[in-house]
């Protein structure tokens, strides 16, 4: 499949009153057509800068960003504006025009592209139908909830028939339930319209839910990149571990004890693993954190367990999990 984006050694250095700040350092990655690509990192890691190099809202100070083999840095302002019609973007703060109705907001990119009024209206209505807000077309954004506003922003972003949709922390201002709905909508759009989506987030749950691949950005560096499943199961970099491991497990009862993390990844959720383990081996573990869910009868998630003191017992327990197809990794 063709690559939508090819980034090579992308760097961004801000210079301010003689001081230099490196926001991105030698980032190279490719995003292929039709995938949902996640870019995750702590705040200040440089992920927002990275997504802004994808439509040249930020100029790079080194390296190249190619969009369908076109080096964005070489485009004139006029050419760049044209290319931007096929790169839509949605934002954390929605950025809708407060003084314009929902339908006028959705029509905006079509107006910029110079499409006649009647056609614009028809297309905008179509987009509102996709996001399920046809009845709100003449309402002002102030009257809508956060989730509805983001839906309008999505409709607006789709109106110009883009080749790629950039989402900059698009769900970070929304509560978990609405976040889930927006992510489902994005997934649906990705599948039905074969639209490539790039998602910037600081929440691993967003990446787990809809992304195919993920890049982890840490202090301006690309720390890790790969299939979401693989990174979740076996994070290699410290930054990835920090994001993937539960952020607030219980303290271990004894700091010298060994902790392990077991990952459920597509196993039957009706099987009670911990109970089976205790029954069959007679060993006990202390559950410090569990974050599991069943999607269509299949279990996903992870647990952090505190192991007994004796090394022999530990081996028996780890052995049991490995034999049963769970991936086990040591925590610290």
């Amino acid at each position, binding site marked *: 499949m063709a690559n939508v984006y090819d980034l090579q050694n992308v760097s961004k250095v801000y210079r301010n009153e003689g001081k230099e700040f490196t926001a991105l350092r030698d980032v190279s990655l490719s995003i292929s057509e039709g995938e949902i690509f996640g870019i995750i990192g702590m705040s200040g890691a440089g992920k927002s800068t990275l997504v802004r190099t994808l439509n040249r809202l930020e100029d790079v100070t080194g390296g190249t960003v190619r969009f369908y083999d076109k080096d964005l840095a070489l485009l004139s302002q006029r050419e760049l504006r044209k290319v931007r019609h096929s790169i839509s973007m949605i934002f954390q703060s929605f950025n*809708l*025009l407060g003084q314009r109705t929902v339908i006028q907001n959705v029509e905006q990119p079509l107006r910029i592209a110079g499409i006649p009024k009647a056609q614009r209206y028809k297309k905008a209505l179509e987009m509102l139908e996709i996001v399920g807000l046809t009845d709100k077309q003449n309402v002002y954004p102030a009257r809508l909830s956060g989730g509805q506003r983001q839906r309008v922003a999505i409709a607006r972003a789709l109106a110009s028939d883009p080749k790629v949709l950039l989402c900059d922390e698009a769900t970070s201002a929304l509560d978990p339930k609405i976040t889930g709905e927006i992510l489902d909508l994005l997934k649906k759009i990705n599948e039905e319209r074969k639209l490539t989506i790039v998602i910037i987030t600081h929440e691993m749950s967003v990446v787990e839910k809809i992304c195919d691949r993920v890049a982890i950005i840490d202090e301006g560096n690309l720390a890790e990149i790969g299939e979401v499943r693989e990174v979740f199961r076996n994070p290699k970099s410290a930054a990835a571990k920090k994001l993937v491991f539960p952020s607030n497990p219980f303290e271990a009862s004894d700091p010298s004890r060994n902790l392990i993390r077991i990952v459920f990844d597509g196993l039957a959720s009706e099987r009670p693993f911990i109970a089976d383990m205790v029954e069959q081996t007679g060993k006990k573990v202390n559950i410090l954190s569990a974050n599991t869910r069943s999607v269509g009868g299949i279990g996903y998630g992870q647990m952090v367990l505190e192991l007994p003191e004796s090394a022999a017992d530990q081996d028996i327990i780890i052995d049991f999990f490995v034999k049963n197809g769970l991936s086990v990794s040591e925590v610290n």
Partner: protein
Amino acid sequence: MSEYIIEAIKNGVIETLIMTFFSSLIAYIIGLPLGVILYSTSGGRLLANRPVNVLLGTLINIMRSLPFLILLVLLIPFTRFVTGSSIGTVASIVPLTVGTIPIVARMVESSLEEVQPGIIEAAESMGASPLYIIVHFILPEATPSLLHGAAINVATVLGYSAMAGVIGGGGLGAIALQYGYYRYQKDVLWTTVALLVILVMIIQESGGLIAKRTRKI
């Protein structure tokens, strides 16, 4: 009060309104674009251009720091050049306009600065040109704030128009000065003052109301 004076006051009200209306109108026709230029050429904005911004900003600051009464006198030759006379209602419109332009420009600039940067970023990401962004994104978003500023500006012009009476301008100011002050007719003085207060209040309140109506946020 004699009938003659009542007639003069009536004319004064009309003259004051004419001066205020045309001065404000012309001041906005010139001041609004200047405000837009001030806003968009400042650092980090759409058309960032330091020389233009500094030059225009300095010019406006100088004009704003001149007391209006001094400006009235300084502009007499210019007024005579434009209108052929330096006294009367029409002539007063010239210095009033010139004095209001810098105030309008600064007021417009500050209204535009209230527009969320995110909205401009969204517009840029849609491939809009700087001019399109100003006309279709920034100005509409700033409209309620611009109207609010306009109400304040028009009320200020009304106050300034009374001052024009000093150098032979028409309107309520001239009447207050001639009959009320020089001839010690206190009733005329207070009547004109009351009328000015009422006019300012009407302008301010109705302006505020219109601004509020347009605000959809």
